[in-house]
């Protein structure tokens, strides 16, 4: 049964290069491998979605049916979980992702103004991606770097004690095509 649904994902994406740069059948095989790897774990939906996003850069709509089938859930349940959590994307992000902290400890060190200025300069809003597809800026509520605020994560690497010039440098480096 699972195979049939994975095949339908092939059909949904057939004829166009996937965002991973791989042809669609390879995507389906990757998805199947993820589902097989989690077949024995209880409450596996979040680990599966994390693995899918790590592999494809987002959770493709075409992946919902095969995931639902494998975990014995309805498509609505899977879609409901994808949409509930801020982390899961339904479209690919830019090549770099900057997660800027918006929470109180960073606010106390001028984080609010810093973020507004950076977004204005990049010409995007929260969650937006620069026109050249290089940089996505996402809001995050606390990175646990509250004693050295304001803080951010750039592609998973922490940076702290940010000020205007430091953030400009980060953005410029990430924005480069």
């Amino acid at each position, binding site marked *: 049964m699972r195979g049939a649904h994975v095949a339908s994902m092939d059909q949904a994406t057939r004829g166009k290069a996937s965002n991973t740069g791989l042809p669609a059948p390879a995507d389906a095989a990757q998805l199947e491998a993820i589902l097989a790897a989690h077949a024995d774990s209880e*409450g596996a939906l979040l680990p599966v979605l994390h693995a899918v996003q790590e592999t494809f850069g987002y959770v493709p709509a075409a992946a919902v049916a095969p995931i639902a089938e494998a975990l014995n859930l309805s498509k609505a349940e899977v879609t409901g979980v994808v949409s509930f959590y801020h982390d899961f994307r339904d479209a690919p992000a830019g090549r770099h992702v900057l997660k800027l902290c918006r*929470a*109180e400890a*960073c606010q106390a060190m001028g984080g609010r103004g810093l973020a507004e200025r950076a977004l204005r300069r990049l010409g995007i809003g929260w969650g937006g991606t620069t026109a050249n597809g290089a940089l996505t800026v996402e809001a995050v509520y*606390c990175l*646990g770097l*509250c*004693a050295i605020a304001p803080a951010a994560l750039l592609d998973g690497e922490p940076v*702290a004690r940010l000020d205007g010039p430091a953030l400009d440098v980060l953005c410029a480096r990430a924005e480069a095509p």
Partner: protein
Amino acid sequence: MSRLFLPRDAAALALGAEAVGEAIAREASARGLSVEIVRTGTRGACWLEPLLEAETPAGRIGYGGVSPGDVPGLFEAGLLVGGAHPKRVGRPGDLPWFAGQTRLTFARCGIVDPLSIEDYRAHGGCEGLARAVAMGPEAVLEEIVKSGLRGRGGAGFPAGIKWRTAARADADRKYIVCNADEGDSGTFADRMLMEGDPFLLIEGMAIAGYAVGARQGYVYIRSEYPHAIRTVRAAIERARGAGLLGADIAGSGFGFDIAVRVGAGAYICGEETALLDSLEGKRGVVRAKPPLPAIEGLFGRPTVINNVLTLAAAPWILAHGGAAYAALGAGRSLGTLAVQLAGNVARGGLVEVPFGLSLRALIEEWGGGTASGRPVRAVQVGGPLGAYFPESLLGTPLDYEAFAAAGGMLGHGGVVVFDDSVDMAAQARFAFEFCAAESCGKCTPCRIGAVRGMEAMDRIAAGTEVARNRALIDDLCELMADASLCAMGGLTPNPVASALRHFPEDFRSAAQAAE
């Protein structure tokens, strides 16, 4: 071979520790010196990071705030033997900032290699579990009850009662769940412990599993903590190899294992029942209580769900006895509290002290005032749902009951300091905005109330029907506090109402100010 110690805690990395490590390796090799760099967690003095330490006959000598550019000069000054240098701080433990602390839970953090089980054992690790399996499950429960340990996640519920309830429940299987979804702004103790001393958490969970008869544990870590996730996963692997986890823990014949699960950016999953739903693969929606998780928790089975620091306190309690733990603290808040000093503060970091210290002592003596040098105006304690205290309430002692009496809450021990440039109307609006963004949506007071509150705040800021909108906010706060299903909606009125009560001058609109 000379030994240096350099943290790889996320806070140290954020301040350039990796580049410092590379510079040391380069410089040592250029000088033909044989140097081993041990990567540790952080001791918690974030203001001193990256804190480089050299092993010398006089103990470990620290150099604070080291940048890659300092490295050649440090070698020139005799870094490897603790030579004099402007960045030399002496033995870190002798600094008043550390000497005034009582480190129980964080005793090893920043000192040991977090992934060395030998290091862990050499510094007193595994003693609690060994004593636990020698005394039997019932006696372990007794020790935890006797210690007076209360849940460190925020609610402060007695851990021993929770454990005993799960132990007495009859079921085919039980679970230990560690709540490591440390979402409160201003808190990082869980992250620091997981990155700096993960075996302590593993040992604590194993003790809990043994005491209540649970064979499976989960650590639910927020995705915002990628370094903690990697460290805990690696530590679990090594703990299995060392017999701390697996089919026969510590020679007891009892089997217990742990898996890491990663959150997905939902603050509400720090609420215990929403976390359980998330672990089950669902939307993180709050459950009504009862049933209590200790009776009907994960997958409907009896579940002990505790914060990282609650579970991490168990090994010390078992090793030294519940009475020794209860001898610390004040009133009904016993043991130590890991305070996280954050925001606009000169010397921020983790301060572990017995309950009872005043907020002012903490901010002035440890924090050294604000980072900006301007006066302290507001302090938010207990995360985004905690109250804002004005200067006049800084005498409040760090104690669950004393904070409640002052209209606030201790929560997970996060203390965020603001200077006099803060706009408290913006902070109050943010509290509603945050609640609106993070509400799970199950109950109406929280889901709708937060949105209406945000709108009313905007109208006040614009000078539209100010008195009417103030009344509406009071009404919403009362409704949310009384009728929300969980603490998310129930406590959002804390920051809002405290800002209104203590800082009314910030809520006069531009229009009023012109009058």
